């Protein structure tokens, strides 16, 4: 049973308090009334556009904005989209995966420190984690152009340390793209990690220590397993948007570093190639869905309480 399924069945097993109010009537429908706005929203802005996207992906590729489009069940749109773009597709997963890994490596210690060591600074640190959201995503990414610029202090320092050659650069390299992705999606990693670490009873860590586990072993055997729901949620929240992102590759990379988001944006924007863009979007969606299902199954959160 999946973690969600377990929660759901626990909710089902709860005695229904609504029964007490049964004679008054009406109350039993409260739940349904409450989800109506959400259902309407999803219908309007997800189901209809999704249907439209599927339809677009099956248009006759010969159509143009001027001559109009027609659904001709062109499955070849998919094969064209994939065969022409398998490199950016793979690159997207590679960059997204790297960014997720770096977010985890940076975010876990940070979330751990906030949850267990920050004391009265806890709230301030949490605010600092989400503070970047007060500025636009675009502005923040553009400022990385300045940070990583050829005459910026980062490049100069790295050159001085001989880590980077004299003509070496960071901007317009894959490194810059992954750096940007890591930076932009770090809060999505930190917050779920913090939430699950914060829930851990510190006495469990003390108990591990009392039972002969060194700090490292205690972490591996108690803290890490108990924080797995946060790790799973954080990696998903980071990987999914990072793999589909196009801003970072656009602003910090070369055209040859383009990710699948850039290709789709190009098709929709300049290219006016709606059918291929739609097909590619759906391929990306399907691939991510498969990967997520596979990942969640493997990560096995159902063993956690």
């Amino acid at each position, binding site marked *: 049973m999946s973690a969600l399924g377990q929660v759901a069945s626990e909710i089902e097993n709860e005695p229904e308090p609504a029964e007490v109010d049964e004679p008054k009537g009406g109350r039993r429908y409260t739940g349904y009334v409450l989800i109506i706005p959400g259902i309407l929203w999803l219908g309007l802005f997800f189901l209809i556009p999704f249907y439209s996207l599927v339809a677009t992906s099956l248009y006759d590729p010969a159509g143009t904005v001027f001559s109009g489009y027609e659904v001709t069940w062109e499955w070849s749109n998919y094969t064209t989209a994939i065969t022409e773009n398998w490199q950016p597709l793979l690159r997207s997963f590679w960059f997204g995966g790297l960014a997720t890994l770096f977010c985890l490596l940076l975010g876990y210690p940070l979330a751990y420190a906030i949850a267990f060591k920050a004391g009265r600074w806890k709230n301030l640190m949490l605010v600092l984690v989400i503070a970047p959201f007060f500025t636009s995503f675009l502005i923040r990414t553009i400022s990385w152009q300045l940070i990583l610029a050829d005459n910026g202090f980062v490049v100069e320092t790295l050159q001085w340390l001989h880590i980077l050659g004299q003509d070496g650069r960071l901007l317009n390299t894959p490194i810059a793209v992954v750096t940007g992705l890591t930076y932009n999606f770090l809060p999505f990693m930190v917050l779920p990690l913090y939430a699950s670490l914060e829930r851990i009873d510190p006495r469990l860590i003390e108990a591990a220590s009392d*039972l002969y586990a060194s700090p490292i072993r205690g972490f591996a055997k108690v803290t890490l397993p108990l924080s797995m729901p946060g790790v799973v949620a954080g990696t998903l929240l980071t990987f999914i948007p990072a793999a589909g992102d196009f801003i970072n590759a656009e602003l910090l990379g070369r055209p040859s570093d383009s990710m699948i988001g850039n290709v789709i944006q190009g098709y929709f924007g300049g290219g006016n190639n709606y059918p291929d863009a739609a097909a590619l979007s759906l391929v990306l969606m399907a691939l991510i869905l498969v990967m997520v299902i596979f990942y969640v199954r493997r990560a096995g959160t159902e063993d956690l309480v």
Partner: protein
Amino acid sequence: MTTADAAAPAPESSTAAPETTRDLRLESLTKSFGTFVAVRDLDLTVPRGSFFALLGPSGCGKTTTLRMVAGLEQPTQGQIYLGDDEVTDLRPYKRPVNTVFQNYALFPHLTIFDNIAFGLRRRGRKDVDSAVNEMIELVELGSQAHKKPAQLSGGQQQRVALARALINEPEVLLLDEPLGALDLKLRRQMQIELKRIQIEVEETFVHVTHDQEEAMTMADTIAVMNGGVIEQMGPPSELYENPATTFVANFLGQSNLIRGELASGSDGELVVDIHGSKIGVSRERSRVQNGPVWVGVRPEKVYISATGEEESTDANTIVGGTITDTSFIGVSTQYLVRMPWGQELTVFEQNTGARKVFSPGTTVDLHWSRPHTFVLDAEQDATAGVETVDDTP
């Protein structure tokens, strides 16, 4: 032996445990948190193999003391020894000491089996499976081995916590309010169970509790703590019969404390004047030798007679009381008796049927045998420890 030896507590066989057990000694142990002193200059020796209770109200420093022994809290000053080895600075995972935590702190993601196996596995023991199975049988959880802690009842979780600590054969087992989360009936069962296990494994148990009855039921020696210091230490009966301070007199059971003045004294006996009545007390049961005092007597030691009806030269007698309340409690009848000086004294009389029941309004005399009198320093607060007797979980 060096401290490094203390780091390797694992006895090769289970029968080796008693020989490797050593006395636990605390020397001028102090712990402060900022300006608050939780434990003040504590000296304490817990003899090996004893069942020792640290008893006190919440905030008295008993849990802090326990945590320092476990290594979970670093003392501000002072030393902790096991036998001749100092363990003060030893990290918790290197101490031959295990803890049964309050609310158990079982690992929620591990099965009962893995919880119990945790300590042995961390020390790389080989015969883990058979040892764990044996321990699971000992605490009668055979059918629960592959369940998660959340699937067990409170009493079962408590036994898992105990098994998880005991399986490591610690030199000292620390129990932090281990029965606090259980209901009364289960608590009584577990008290007897714990005592039985302690005798069986012959290890030193240090038990922290705020429940005086629990401490008296289980421990050989009780140290009553208050405000970071030990008020009195000794076997339960000694603490109960001869309390050294008003706090102990009130916290351990109930006491009547009557203001008096030490009048005269012969060799072995002192005479105290309480509001005109002369009371005798042996010199060794008096904590002060002159001046104003508290005369103490336990409610169940007192017996009541109608005014002037009984006179004895052996017993201490105070006269002129009026019954203000009579409550029938089953095993005993509880009286409140207002004395001429306004104080209300409590008297418990066993319902043996031998003595008459007095109704409110009756004027009575109170008697008790001289050896049951104790005398405390009048400087102390007569209500110290009173309100904390009633423990609300």
